[in-house]
């Protein structure tokens, strides 16, 4: 029953987020600040993880190909498919649920605990629009982060393959060009946009409606990470079934 109540409350929060918009001159600054905090601030960790995971995927694929009938370019092909279809959009989003999601929950939760949200409400400001809407808009740039993750993942695979002695550059390049289906990129970005919406709203929900003190802010961050991850995994399954199944 609590789950149903929370799901209903979540959708009401989404509806409220679009009502009574904040003055544009103020909103513009909030969006720019959130782009800096949520998008630009995540580039470093995303780039680092994508590059090295791309390398690991290439090494693992190479080490598991023993059959001489399997072409060497399969390493590049498998790395590209893994990175573009799943690793960059889905698993980077799970990592972002930890990084960006915890940040959103704890910052909004702290504002709740310290009555800053009450202060906004008393002034007649739609606090959900003021706090959540800029995060939602700024995370619409999330596909840009995922594009970088895709590029660096494939690049990491290439570096590991070539400099680790697992294959040649020519084979790898042929592999990443083989059977390329442009719709896979569209599919990845559709998922990314949906996950961006989830990343902005579920952590905000847990921060905004939290009750208690500092300890509860920590608990809310953990719960928010768990539910954001669960929803991302479920939606990943659903979207994959719908778009590729």
């Amino acid at each position, binding site marked *: 029953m609590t789950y149903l109540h929370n799901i209903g409350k979540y959708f009401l929060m989404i509806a409220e987020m679009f009502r*009574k918009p904040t003055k544009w001159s103020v909103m513009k600054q909030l969006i720019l600040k959130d782009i800096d905090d949520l998008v630009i601030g995540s580039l470093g960790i995303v780039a680092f993880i994508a590059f090295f995971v791309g390398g690991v995927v290439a090494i693992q694929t190479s080490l598991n190909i023993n059959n001489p009938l399997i072409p060497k370019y399969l390493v590049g092909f498998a790395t590209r498919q893994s990175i573009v279809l799943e690793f960059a959009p889905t698993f980077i989003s799970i990592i972002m649920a930890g990084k960006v999601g915890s940040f959103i929950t704890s910052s909004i939760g*702290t504002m709740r605990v310290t009555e*800053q949200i009450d202060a906004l409400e008393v*002034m*007649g400001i739609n606090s959900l629009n003021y706090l959540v809407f800029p995060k939602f808009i700024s995370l619409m740039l999330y596909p840009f982060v995922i594009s970088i993750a895709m590029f660096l993942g494939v690049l990491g695979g290439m570096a590991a393959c070539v400099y680790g002695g697992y294959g040649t550059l020519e084979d790898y390049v042929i592999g990443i060009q083989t059977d390329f289906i442009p719709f896979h990129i569209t599919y990845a970005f559709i998922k990314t946009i949906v996950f961006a919406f989830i990343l902005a709203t579920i952590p905000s929900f847990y921060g905004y409606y939290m009750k208690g003190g500092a300890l509860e802010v920590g608990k809310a961050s953990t719960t928010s990470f768990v539910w954001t991850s669960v929803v991302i995994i479920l939606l990943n399954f659903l979207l994959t079934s719908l778009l590729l199944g």
Partner: protein
Amino acid sequence: MIEVKNLHKSFGEAHILKGITTSFEKGKTNLIIGQSGSGKTVFLKCLLGLFDYEEGSIAYEGKIFSKLSPDEKRNLRAEIGMVFQGSALFDSMTIAENVMFPLRMFTKQSKSEMQDRVDFVLKRVNLDDAHNKMPSEASGGMQKRVAIARAIVNNPKYLFCDEPNSGLDPKTAIVIDNLIQEITDEYNITTVINSHDMNSVMEIGEKIVFLKNGLKEWEGSKDTIFKTDNEAVTNFVYSSELFKKVRKMYLEENS
């Protein structure tokens, strides 16, 4: 003027406010006092529209708050200044930005006009050199003064303060009390303070409402509170030996 009639508020099974009727007059410092758990904060949050209530009414200048349209509520809230117990300053903004915030949200003033107004109110609360400090760099007393500056910057008609003296030393508490009293007189606004600081009661309580177990037990002023024979009020207000002596002296002098 704010008029409250038969206000009831519950949280689940817990009946917190059990039918409060009172009024808060314009140009006066109105105090709500009572023990912890008496319903003071819930009452204040109902007045501010942060909590819905089940029964009764709250009227601002004759207009019943619950019957106002969303736009009318928004307009009314723009006329309210609030000082929260923990100051509730926005962590990510400097002190000047915190004070400027209501102006940015609700006025069409130019940046220089807003800056002038911020300079004026910060000077009014004796903080003329704190513009660029972050709230975390300010002491408790400074934070309270910034909160007061933010509350009055947009010329509110109503000023609400939730325990403005909590966590402050006695000297700073008196400074804050006097500041609120001066601002109330200067701007002729309706000020409602939620407090259990007895110094505030004696210093600035032009109207005092005493709550007990969610009911209005007594109301009067800082003058009549000395003479009251209401046992609940005397037990609460004169719980310390010092205040008992002060009351005894007052009654002897005025008998």
